[in-house]
């Protein structure tokens, strides 16, 4: 397979080509990078929705339901579902398909499971590139489901236009609700499993939290859902789509898109500099020498880092 063949395959909406392109990107192959660089120009500006929240709150079931709702409205959907890789073996169990029951054979849906492969932040390292590929394929919506997150894995806000933070009753008190981090990135807050005891309290605490802050333009709504029965999904989707409209009308969408390009650019610059320096330093023994100095107390990290940059760039920038 070469670049042209893959791009033509994606253009012709052949899912085998999209699937293979994603693998190439995930494996960091030069061919994959070339495909993404070219696909970037044929993006069609899909709406990107992020779904995040703690493990077990019902993200996958909710995504399954949302896909159905988006399809009923005639939109096609690309789904990216991320699960964690083992820090020891690099292996992973990607289980999001287990909950994705209803639309497996729907021609308007493409579902891909990704492993984090050591990337922190709630997404896989190449999520941004996979979004570009799915966008070039022509999906109207791209739904990104993060790993089950704790309090500070907020990468999804870099790439999704609208973020739904999913909570379930009974996972914390009102102090949890005013902490910084995950709750702050929600454009829509969703209390799932709303049939469980404590849902009312969770909703009130969230509303109290939101009441402590002045919002300009958009105040995140709190929506109750029961993903397993589909209850509340229409209202959830309605809120998300209202947020999308708001982004367009307020001009914030442009700002968000710019910010996400910025984040990707930073990653690429790191890859072209940091990663290459470390690779070279490792292969020619420089890294080993510097580390030995550090262990023996003969050097310090500050000077070591400067020496590395100077050695491979010829100058400290």
């Amino acid at each position, binding site marked *: 397979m070469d670049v042209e063949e893959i791009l033509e395959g994606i253009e012709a909406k052949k*899912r*085998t080509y999209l*699937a*293979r392109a*994603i*693998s190439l990107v*995930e*494996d*960091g*192959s030069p061919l994959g990078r070339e495909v993404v660089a070219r696909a970037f120009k044929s993006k069609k500006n899909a709406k990107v929705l992020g779904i995040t929240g703690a493990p077990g709150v019902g993200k996958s079931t909710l995504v399954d339901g949302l896909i159905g709702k988006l399809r009923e409205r005639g939109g096609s959907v690309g789904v990216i579902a991320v699960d964690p*890789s*083992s820090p020891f*073996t*690099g*292996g*992973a*169990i*990607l*289980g999001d*398909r*287990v*909950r994705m*029951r209803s639309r*497996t*054979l729907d021609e308007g849906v*493409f*579902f*891909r*499971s990704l*492993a984090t*492969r050591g990337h922190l932040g709630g997404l896989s390292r190449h999520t941004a590139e996979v979004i570009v590929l799915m966008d070039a394929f022509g999906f109207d919506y791209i739904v990104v489901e993060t790993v089950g997150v704790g309090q500070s894995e907020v990468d999804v806000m870099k790439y999704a236009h609208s973020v739904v933070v999913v909570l379930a009753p009974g996972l914390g008190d009102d102090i949890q609700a005013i902490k910084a981090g995950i709750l702050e990135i929600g454009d829509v807050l969703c209390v799932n499993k709303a049939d469980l005891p404590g849902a009312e309290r969770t909703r009130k605490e969230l509303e109290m939290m939101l009441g402590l802050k002045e919002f300009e333009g958009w105040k995140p709504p709190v929506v109750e859902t029961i993903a397993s029965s589909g209850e509340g999904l229409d209202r959830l989707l309605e809120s998300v789509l209202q947020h999308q409209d708001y982004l367009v009308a307020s001009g914030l969408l442009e700002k968000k898109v710019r910010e996400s390009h910025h984040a990707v650019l930073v990653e690429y610059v790191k890859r072209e500099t940091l990663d290459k320096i470390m690779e070279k330093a490792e292969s020619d023994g420089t890294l080993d020498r510097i580390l030995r100095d550090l262990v023996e107390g003969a050097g310090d990290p500050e000077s070591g880092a400067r020496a590395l940059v100077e050695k491979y760039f010829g100058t400290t920038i």
Partner: protein
Amino acid sequence: MSRTIRVLVGKPGLDGHDRGAKVIARAYRDAGMEVIYSGLHRTPEELARMAVEEDVDVVALSILSGAHATLLPKVVDCLKKEKGSDQLDVLILAGGIIPAEDVAFLKEHGIDEVFGPGTSTEEIVQYTRTHLKREIA
């Protein structure tokens, strides 16, 4: 740099027993592979679609219902259809309760290997590593 091997562990048909599938999934994970688990009660069409979208190197089918002679060749046929090719680049394995006299039939119909009860997970992982149909380097 070698790439990460991806495996679909699939449960075709009306068979509610997935302890074996989970053990295999775990063994592949511990061997450094990425395992997509299909969940229970999947049709051959669904499993083929998953294998394509997830771009897996291996489809490992677990079946204890006795319907293997019907369902497993169907998975192979569906996968050929999805991929638009008779030459599959995916290793297709089966495990579970499959009588020895059925193995030859399954192999004639596109199943690359069949593992019965008592097979060690090491053996299955080792077989998988050495029989991949796509380059991993």
